[in-house]
């Protein structure tokens, strides 16, 4: 009797557990396919980047892999090129991120609640650079910046005669590449803020008007707070674009003239695939990844909803 009872409850338990665990496993089955791709080709390489950054290796099959601790970081951070690349990134943060966000906000402030005829057309045009391959953008801008290019042509119409080949100029190349970034990203911020402004409750604008507030009050007390989510998105996208500028630099200047336009991405490429310093390339990649993570965290922290 006692024995039977025990078996019965055991059986019930077993069934219960089995049914439950199968049921519980089902959601994971849906995630596995994506998980396999993501783990194998994003997470694992990311982990391996961290791993590799602690070793010295030339990548040649059979070549010794030597553990060197943080030496790669020390040697990378004591190299002048690294600091050049990072300082160029600062310039790019200005041109890829801050200029487009400011222009987009100015635009949104001008715009708030205005009904625009032909908006779809303008929006389609200014957003266009987002879908064009960077190499095509690079070719187009190389022509614009050449000595006989469009920029000098426009400048000469304005009465400034300038025979400079901008991308080959030691003083101007970095700014010239950076401004291509502004050109790519401004359409995005404008369209983004535009859709955000449309969502803001128009009663808020009326309230400011009734209070006798001017355009500045309107902007700082209604438009800007109302655009908080869009601001987070815009800062995140544009800052990541500023940090992953490898494509644009590679197709316009390849880091030159000299080292005037090198960025972390081109340094990773040079160290890993031109000079076979894989450990150092990996530590550079780690620094880049950490900067991206830190910036994304900082943006969402600074612009978080305050109670």
């Amino acid at each position, binding site marked *: 009797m006692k024995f039977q009872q025990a078996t019965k409850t055991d059986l019930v338990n077993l069934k219960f557990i089995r049914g439950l665990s199968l049921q519980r496993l089902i959601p994971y089955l*849906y*995630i596995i396919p994506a998980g396999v791709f993501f783990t194998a080709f994003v997470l694992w390489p990311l982990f391996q980047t961290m791993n590799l950054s602690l070793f010295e290796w030339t990548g040649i099959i059979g070549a010794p892999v030597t553990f060197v601790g943080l030496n790669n970081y020390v040697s990378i951070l004591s190299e002048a090129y690294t600091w050049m690349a990072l300082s160029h990134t600062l310039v790019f943060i200005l041109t890829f991120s801050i200029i487009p966000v400011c222009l987009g906000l100015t635009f949104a402030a001008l715009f708030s609640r205005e009904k625009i005829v032909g908006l779809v057309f303008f929006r389609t045009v200014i957003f266009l650079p987002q879908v064009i391959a960077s190499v095509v953008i690079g070719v187009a801008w190389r022509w614009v910046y050449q000595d006989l290019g469009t920029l000098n042509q426009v400048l000469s119409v304005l009465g400034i005669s300038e025979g400079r080949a901008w991308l080959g100029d030691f003083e101007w190349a970095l700014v010239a590449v950076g401004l291509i970034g502004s050109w790519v990203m401004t359409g995005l911020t404008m369209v983004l803020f535009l859709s955000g402004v449309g969502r803001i409750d128009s009663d808020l604008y009326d309230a400011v008007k009734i209070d006798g507030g001017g355009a500045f009050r309107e902007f700082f007390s209604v438009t800007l707070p109302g655009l908080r989510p869009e601001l987070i998105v815009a800062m995140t996208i544009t800052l990541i674009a500023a940090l992953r500028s490898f494509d644009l630099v590679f197709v316009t200047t390849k880091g030159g003239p000299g080292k005037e336009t090198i960025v972390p991405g081109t340094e990773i490429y040079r160290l890993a695939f031109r000079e076979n310093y894989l450990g150092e390339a990996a530590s550079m990649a780690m620094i880049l990844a950490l900067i991206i993570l830190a910036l994304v965290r900082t943006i969402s922290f600074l612009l978080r909803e305050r109670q």
Partner: protein
Amino acid sequence: MKAQKEKMQRSRSLTNGGFFRRLAIYGFLGIASGIVLTPFVTLLNVSVQSPDSTATNLSWPENFYWQNFVTAWTKGDFPLPMLMLNSLIVASVVVPTTVLVSVLAGYAFGTLRFRGDKFLFFIFMIGLIMPFEATIVPLYYQLRSMGLINNLVGVMLPQVGLFCAFGIFWLRQFFKAMPPSLIEAAKVDGAGTFRILRSVLLPISWPPILTLATLVFIWSWNEFLLALVVLDRETRTAPSGLASFSGQWTTDIPALSAAAILVALPTVILYVALNRKIIAGILQGAVKG
């Protein structure tokens, strides 16, 4: 009385302001559009110049040399048709695979509850902010050990891995917004989770899936660093191939321009046809901060 006067003044100044505001807005939009279009117009203009021309600006061509496009397409040392075909092959595998795995995972994250769902989703979202720059070094050697260097599969697999992060994010949002009653009703009818996905949710999910497919196609077509590193010159995809041949080609600037236009054409056509969906997709893509 005074208040009324004030009100009138205010409304008048508003209409005045309205006019100048309108002027400023159209001025701003016009200038912005002009600046955006200038490089593209330059590129188009250069592509129809005489082949020995070196001017790369907006001067009107004496003759329109449309044959530059034929040169770009057929010139022997620049295998543009093959590069474009490679891009097409890569995209035609990456797009359906990414959509499939994203639908499955997005469905699980959007409608099912399970232990660790928030954490796993967070892990996937790392893919939204990590560029290939951060992983390319070990990725290259990983692909080499898999025998996938100079093989289009070596470009496809990592692209699916990276792009499915966005796909999951995008479709989870959509599935989450489904009315729970819809799923509950199917459950009462005894439908399992897969049947709910296949016969209840999927038939109404085509719009966001189409947007996802379009975006993934554009990203896959434009992907640069991975293709540059993994593939050799002759087997590259269109953008990375164009970059490696453009240095060699600077003698024929118009043909290079024509080639660049041809490389951009598929994404531009898609964009013109589906711009509303594409813009919405890209803007929502990084909402996750």
